[in-house]
């Protein structure tokens, strides 16, 4: 568990006039790592350096103990990469796409087909696997890309925005799959994303880049901290329910702040951990409480704090 | 009508902004250069340059320029921006045709005029031939633009290869097999209008061609333009676009 | 009053593939969210309105007339989900061109294009070629071209995919202001929370069929019609659990660790109402209450994993 996945020392990469990576030094342990940052933060460039597709202007990089500059093909053979954009290989079916991926990684044709079916089964692509990929829905396409990335049994999986464009149910399943890849396969995962909620769910270590510089490199728990004594409350009721509830809360010495969603509020009770007042207020306002839980600092907030 | 003109204008603007347009245009001047050189050596500028311009340069200029660009617009569904405006669906096609014809004509007329000048300088060209070739090039530009736009609307995934395949059949394969088939060749008919001897351009395997007539030439050229355009417009109006 | 949008028994098949099945619906002015998982038929529904696809069966009427008719686009703006434009043009030229096609003369079109591009927040990038635009700027350009001719009906297909949280919030504000101007805005999305911040009126599609339409309450009721798991942490979970087990609406109670219990119910509404009452009666302090099932994604998940007749 404590082995080093990625070691980067003083890594810089400049394109004409643009510094994509600026003196980044980071050591990442095996596990599930999130690579976070706004667009143009240098995430893609770092990924490219790891795959040996881009030569760093200066600095050292080591992936799984190998130097991608010296042996790019060796590194890539042990990495599975799920790109953000659809790699359209027109007219290939799901099975063919996966088998092709496996064969490119050196598996013999028979083994490739066998592994392709296993990977698609694992990723939850059903009978549609015999149809051309371009007709798939977004969710199915993401699953197929995941299957194509794990089909050759890599030791490290790069996922670039794997939940982009997925509906909530598909997103849940995709995240569960990603978590499972680590647990059952012992395969490390690097997740590049801007959807902070994803990170919350599956990662245990976070690397934050902004403007090509390293902003944070820490276990997720450290970044999030613990609760701050406030509660997130969601109620069910008619249009007047929320104002009524807020009045009752105020009458009991609690303060309510808007959370952004319509039937939700963030409540600071008068005494620490005093949920009784909230329940009483709800009863007096005759609203149903559908959600009541201590509010952790969200990654969103941590992120905004880091960027500021 | 103003919609057609607006589309034509933007089509021209887009063509000008594409870098490929500029180096494709260079293709139109190769015949004049080569013709001039051959003319200077005493081999006849027109007999070398004109077939090259009409048979090779013009189609190869028109196909990527018009079919390739418009095919991309259809394939990537960008055309939906046109078709969700209060204009009939054939209007953007007509506008594209107008723009493409104008741009192609400009380049081809220039290429043709330079060749005619080269011919006049090195040979014994009449004053009439100075105008005949450029005028013929306009008709070829219009016909090729129509063909390419029709093909792009009908086969948006493979506009260039289908256009080239169509031209390979009408210009090379069929006329090469059987002499009367030379009548359906666009370049042969444009050559008739331009007053150029077609002998050098078409494979000698097939024997002599039927005698040329300006009326047939005009008819064939018009059909070359109208048939694909009509089929393309029908496809755009009748079919689902999504 | 004629509804702005009216679908009458619309079905659409692409060959044998189902796009929409027997959708009938009427929409009035204001913002409406069009919800559904990937592949539910949201894009097809919008394309039926723009005439991009023709229904295989049934009719679509906009402003009381059957589409497609060319003139409808004087009153309709549409932002498709595609990512490309005429890449050689600048945003100003692109939107001006589309305004001219909408019937304005050159000067008026240019004025409108500039105003609308500034309104969507592209003031800094007006004269840059579209080829250099990022995903977020493309979404804004699409919105601008859909608004430039001041349409009464605006159709937006997934206008918020690929945006970071900040840009998302800006687009939501913009859409809200469009609704406040009295326009009809139909926004497709697969994220309930996203839609919920914009509007209370939603239409839910599932596998090409109309699953629900109306106020969010209707959807809340829909949520209440399938079984819930409710997770509680309490000071004395076993006492609370024993009391809850006596209720008819509770089908199972499970204990997990020292302070957690999980309640399963087939009548969520009654159960949520009963929990605080039972807690007070037994004198147990409930410290938190959460449920993975109290949202729309759970409905979709539930529908997907069988029991199709239940909803």
């Amino acid at each position, binding site marked *: 568990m404590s082995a080093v996945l990625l070691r980067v020392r003083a890594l810089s990469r400049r394109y004409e006039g643009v510094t994509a990576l600026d003196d980044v030094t980071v050591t990442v342990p095996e596990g599930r790592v999130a690579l976070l940052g706004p667009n143009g933060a240098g995430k893609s460039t770092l990924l490219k350096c790891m795959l040996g597709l881009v030569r760093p202007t200066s600095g050292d990089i080591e992936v799984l103990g190998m130097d991608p500059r010296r042996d790019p093909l060796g590194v*890539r053979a042990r990495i599975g990469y799920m790109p953000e954009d659809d790699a359209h290989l027109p007219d290939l079916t799901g099975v063919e796409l996966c088998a092709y991926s496996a064969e*490119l990684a*050196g598996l013999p044709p028979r083994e490739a087909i066998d592994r392709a079916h296993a990977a698609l089964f*694992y990723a939850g692509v059903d009978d549609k696997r015999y149809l051309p990929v371009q007709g798939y829905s977004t969710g199915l396409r993401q699953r197929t890309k995941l299957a194509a990335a794990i089909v050759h049994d890599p030791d490290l999986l790069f996922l670039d925005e794997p939940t982009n464009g997925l509906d909530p149910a598909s997103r849940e399943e995709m995240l569960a799959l990603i978590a499972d890849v680590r647990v059952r396969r012992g395969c490390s995962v690097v997740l590049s994303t801007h959807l902070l909620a994803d990170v919350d769910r599956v990662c245990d270590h976070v690397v934050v880049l902004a403007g090509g510089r390293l902003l944070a490199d820490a276990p997720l728990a450290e970044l999030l901290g613990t609760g701050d004594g406030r509660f997130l409350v969601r109620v069910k009721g008619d249009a007047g329910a929320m104002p009524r509830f807020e009045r009752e809360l105020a009458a009991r010495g609690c303060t309510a702040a808007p959370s952004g969603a319509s039937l939700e509020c963030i409540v600071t009770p008068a005494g620490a951990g005093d949920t009784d007042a909230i329940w009483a207020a709800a009863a007096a306002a005759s609203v149903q409480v559908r959600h009541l839980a201590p509010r952790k600092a969200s990654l969103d907030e941590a992120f905004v704090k880091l960027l500021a | 009508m103003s919609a057609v003109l607006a589309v034509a204008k933007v089509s021209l603007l887009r063509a000008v902004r594409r870098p490929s347009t500029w180096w494709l245009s260079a293709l139109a001047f190769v015949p004049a250069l080569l013709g001039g050189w051959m003319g200077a050596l005493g081999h006849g500028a027109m007999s070398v340059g004109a077939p090259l311009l009409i048979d*090779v340069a013009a189609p190869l200029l028109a196909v*990527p320029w018009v*079919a390739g660009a418009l095919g991309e617009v259809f394939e990537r569904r960008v055309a939906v921006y046109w078709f969700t405006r209060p204009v009939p669906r054939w209007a953007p096609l007509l506008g594209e045709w107008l723009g493409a014809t104008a741009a192609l004509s400009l380049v081809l007329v220039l290429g043709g005029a330079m060749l005619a000048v080269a011919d006049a300088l090195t040979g014994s060209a009449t004053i009439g031939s100075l105008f005949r070739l450029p005028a013929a090039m306009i008709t070829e530009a219009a016909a090729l633009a129509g063909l390419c736009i029709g093909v792009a609307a009908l086969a948006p995934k493979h506009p260039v*290869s289908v256009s080239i*395949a169509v031209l390979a059949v009408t210009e090379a394969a069929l006329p090469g097999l059987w002499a009367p088939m030379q009548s359906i060749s666009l370049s042969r008919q444009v050559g008739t209008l331009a007053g150029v001897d077609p002998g050098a351009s078409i494979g000698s395997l097939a024997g002599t061609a039927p005698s040329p007539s300006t009326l047939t030439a005009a008819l064939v050229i018009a059909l070359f333009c109208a048939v694909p355009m009509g089929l393309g417009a029908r496809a755009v109006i009748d079919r689902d676009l999504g | 009053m004629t509804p702005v949008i009216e679908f009458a028994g619309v079905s659409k098949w692409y060959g044998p593939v189902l796009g929409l099945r027997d959708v009938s619906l009427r929409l009035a002015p204001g913002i409406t969210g069009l919800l559904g998982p990937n592949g539910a038929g949201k894009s097809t529904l919008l394309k039926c309105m723009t005439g991009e696809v023709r229904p295989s069966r049934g009719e679509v009427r906009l402003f009381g007339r059957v589409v497609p008719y060319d003139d409808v686009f004087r009153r309709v703006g549409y932002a498709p989900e595609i990512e490309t434009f005429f890449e050689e043009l600048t945003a100003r030229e692109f939107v001006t061109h589309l305004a001219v096609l909408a019937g304005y003369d050159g000067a008026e079109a240019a004025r409108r294009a500039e105003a609308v591009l500034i309104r969507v927040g592209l003031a800094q990038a007006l004269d840059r070629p579209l080829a250099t635009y990022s995903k977020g700027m493309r979404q804004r350009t699409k919105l601008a071209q859909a608004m430039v001719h001041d349409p009464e009906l605006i159709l937006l297909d997934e206008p918020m995919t690929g945006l970071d949280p900040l840009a998302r919030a800006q687009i939501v504000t913009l859409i809200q202001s469009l609704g406040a101007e009295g326009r009809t805005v139909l926004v497709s999305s697969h994220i309930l929370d996203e839609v919920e911040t914009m509007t209370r009126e939603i239409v839910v599609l599932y596998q090409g069929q109309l699953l629900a339409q109306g106020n969010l309450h209707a959807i809340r009721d829909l949520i209440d019609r399938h079984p819930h798991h409710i997770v509680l942490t309490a000071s004395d979970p076993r006492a609370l659990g024993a009391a809850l087990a006596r209720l008819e609406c509770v089908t199972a109670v499970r204990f997990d660790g020292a302070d957690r219990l999980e309640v399963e119910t087939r009548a969520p509404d009654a159960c949520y109402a009963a929990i605080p009452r039972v807690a007070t009666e037994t004198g147990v302090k409930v410290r938190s209450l959460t449920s993975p099932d109290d949202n729309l994604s759970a409905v979709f998940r539930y529908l997907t994993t069988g029991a199709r007749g239940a909803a």
Partner: protein
Amino acid sequence: MSAMVPPPNDRSAAAPRGEVHSLSYSRYAGPRRPRSAVPWVVARYAWRVQLRQRGVKVLLLLGGGVLAISGAVLGFAWSVPGMTGGGEADPVRAAEAQAIASSLEAQFIPGFLLVLWCGAGAVAADLNAGAFQFHFARPVSAQGYLVGRVLSGAGLAFALSFATLAVLCAERLAFGSTPLRMALTFAVGAALVTARATLLGVVAAGLSSLTRRKGLAQAMFAAVVFASSFVTRIVAAASDKPWVRALGLSGCVDARAAQWHGTAGLHGALAAVPLLACIGWGVVGAALAWWRVSRAEVMRG
């Protein structure tokens, strides 16, 4: 493939035993092939897709028609003594020359169109569709990918020409050529057919890697093929220098064929022109492709 989970209760050996297999993901411990196999993998999957396309089917049908017609016409001519090669010193040898020339020339338009369809836009389309990152994020080298694309672009055109050659050679065996001479003719013909397909494929791959736009790449390929043959033909005819014809992309292989029959009319130093032109086209195409692919920014963003 599947890890066995021991049955929960195996104390009673007499009880019926069942096994539950885990269906979850398992590691791969099987063989891996050397990286030299990559071009074949790239080509094989490309062919599989090509053969499904309607355009390719039409073109193959066209090529098949050409094969049938030329086989029938030449077979008929050869079966009637004295009908061909009457004026030649060695009619048998002339007929063999005809077999090679037909497989090159009769199949030129179908072959060209096949390379145009399958090969000329392939690299550009890959670049545009993000397939570069698909390939190069896997253990695929630029060389391996390019060789694969040349193979996939020219493969079907080669198959057409080669089939024509094989049919015509078989007919010659039936109509009087000796097996030994036929073997030689066949070997030379095969080399020329291979050269033709390779040159078309390499030039197509090279040109198609210059742009992201598939259509533009295809048009450039058509322009190079037609313009080079047209210009060299006209210049050769106008200036009466037959060696100029051998400079064209299609002319160089045709001239090599003519040289083998002794009908090229190139003497002295000029005799090397066709071979040099072949090599030149190949080198230029390969250099273009290599230059572009090796410096491509593989991932966007």
